[in-house]
């Protein structure tokens, strides 16, 4: 594996580590099966590209991506909490709607290429910059989870009935958590746009799965139920996944092509989850 490939895997791993943090907040922390990340990452990227084209600075463009992601998060929360549409359908509908909204943002263009526009990665090593951003976001969110507010947030995912009995307002917590989740995903969309130099309205397809694979890998590696610690380590799972993919695709070693990426990803998740189930079944039998 070449140094350039390793470096690119690490960079993409850190960006998808942020996606994993967003997905973790909804899927694990508040137990909300939200599939809208496929749309909100593209929204983050499109908003970033349009902002850069309009002459905004790279940091301001990233802030706009984050804000646009946070707004995207309100949609599935509203559909589920106010209109009582199921979690899965709320997420799917949001991703579906966001495709058209993203086209509106880009002015009807399927993609926007960044040519001479400024990028945050011009200021130093992309790996270092992404490392700082990832660590900052992960540390802030991990700290939030161990505060009184974070405890209430976790309570609605663990035992919603008990949480309500103790005066926690589930609806407002879902709104805030999904906004936070998609804000992080929107930020990762902006970073992806600035790193790759383009934004595409359909660049989000499969984002939730990529986030989930990082979560499953991290949980298999660190084996803890401590949410704050898991959240801090999600980047490790995302980087490991990127490296595995890079190794698999390098030099036709295993006869795997780039088009097989989704197949490999899917099989990897099935293997990890299936192994967990088979292992617990086996240990039950041996008892």
């Amino acid at each position, binding site marked *: 594996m070449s140094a350039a490939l390793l470096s690119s895997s690490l960079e993409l791993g850190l960006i998808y580590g942020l996606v994993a943090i967003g997905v973790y907040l909804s899927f694990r922390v508040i137990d909300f099966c939200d599939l809208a990340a496929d749309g909100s990452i593209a929204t983050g990227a499109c908003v970033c590209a349009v902002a850069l084209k309009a002459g905004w600075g790279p940091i301001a463009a990233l802030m706009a991506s984050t804000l646009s992601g946070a707004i995207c998060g309100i949609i599935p929360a509203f559909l589920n909490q106010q209109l009582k549409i199921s979690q899965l359908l709320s997420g799917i509908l949001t991703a579906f709607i966001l495709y058209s909204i993203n086209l509106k943002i880009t002015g009807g263009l399927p993609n926007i290429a960044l040519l001479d526009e400024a990028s945050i990665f011009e200021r130093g090593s992309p790996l270092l910059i992404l490392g700082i951003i990832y660590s900052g976001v992960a540390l802030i969110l991990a700290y939030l989870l161990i505060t009184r507010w974070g405890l209430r947030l976790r309570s609605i995912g663990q035992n919603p*009935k008990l949480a309500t009995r103790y005066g926690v307002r589930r609806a407002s917590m879902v709104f805030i958590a999904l906004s936070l989740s998609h804000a992080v995903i929107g930020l990762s969309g902006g970073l992806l746009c600035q790193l790759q130099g383009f934004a595409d309205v359909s660049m989000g397809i499969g984002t939730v799965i990529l986030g989930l694979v990082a979560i499953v890998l991290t949980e298999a590696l660190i084996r803890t*139920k401590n949410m704050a610690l898991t959240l801090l380590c999600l980047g490790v799972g995302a980087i490991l996944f990127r490296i595995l993919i890079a190794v698999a695709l390098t030099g036709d070693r295993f006869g795997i092509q780039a088009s097989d990426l989704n197949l490999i990803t899917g099989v990897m998740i099935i293997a990890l989850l299936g192994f967990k189930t088979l292992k617990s079944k086996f240990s039950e039998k041996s008892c």
Partner: protein
Amino acid sequence: MLILNDICVQFQQGKPSLELDKLCIKEGYCTAIIGTNGAGKSTLFNVISGDLSPQRGSVALNEKEISTFSSKQKSKTFSTVVQDPRQGTFENLSIFENMAFAAARGERSNIKSIFKKFQKRLFAEKLSILGMGLEDRLNARVGSLSGGQRQALSLIMATLQTPKVLLLDEPTAALDPAMAIRVMDIVQKLTKELNLITLMITHNLEHAAHYAEDILVMNAGIIEKRITKKVSALDLAASLHQLAA
């Protein structure tokens, strides 16, 4: 003092699910509610906690109507312990986190860390009442505790921010006899120490006879009998049998 006045709850056309003229319950007493399934025990609980609004009548705590309470006030005033110990705790959180969550009931949430030394001491002190050694296992996951330990923990959590009314819905139904007695001893102790209005639905007539100073015998939505003197479990069984007949 909790006062229920002229209450009527009717879910469907026909006989009301709950109907009572006047019921006063004093602080510092444990009141047991016994009766067959469908007697109206849970309906009475839900009316008292404000989760169910009766079609007629009022519930007042210290002369203040419960229907006027905000959800925050309600959660601060009423504490419930349910039959299933898994429902009364957060199994993937540590004992400390469960306690910290309960300690913040009815208060504003903030973004200060929950890990504070003084709180650890306070929680350990509260848990030591149980005599189960939980005070030395503050970082243990609640999922690793036995059913009895979890039920005892849920009881401590329910009374950590002293409520005015403690509602116990068959709190010992899922416990073995020895653990059930231990939990009931704690209920009795907390009721006296914290001067709580404790109401307990139970099918365990021995517990009702031994621990409650006041027993409400319910049947078909009404309180058929109120027993305020010491009786035996056999007397209670006879009363229930008489009603069923």
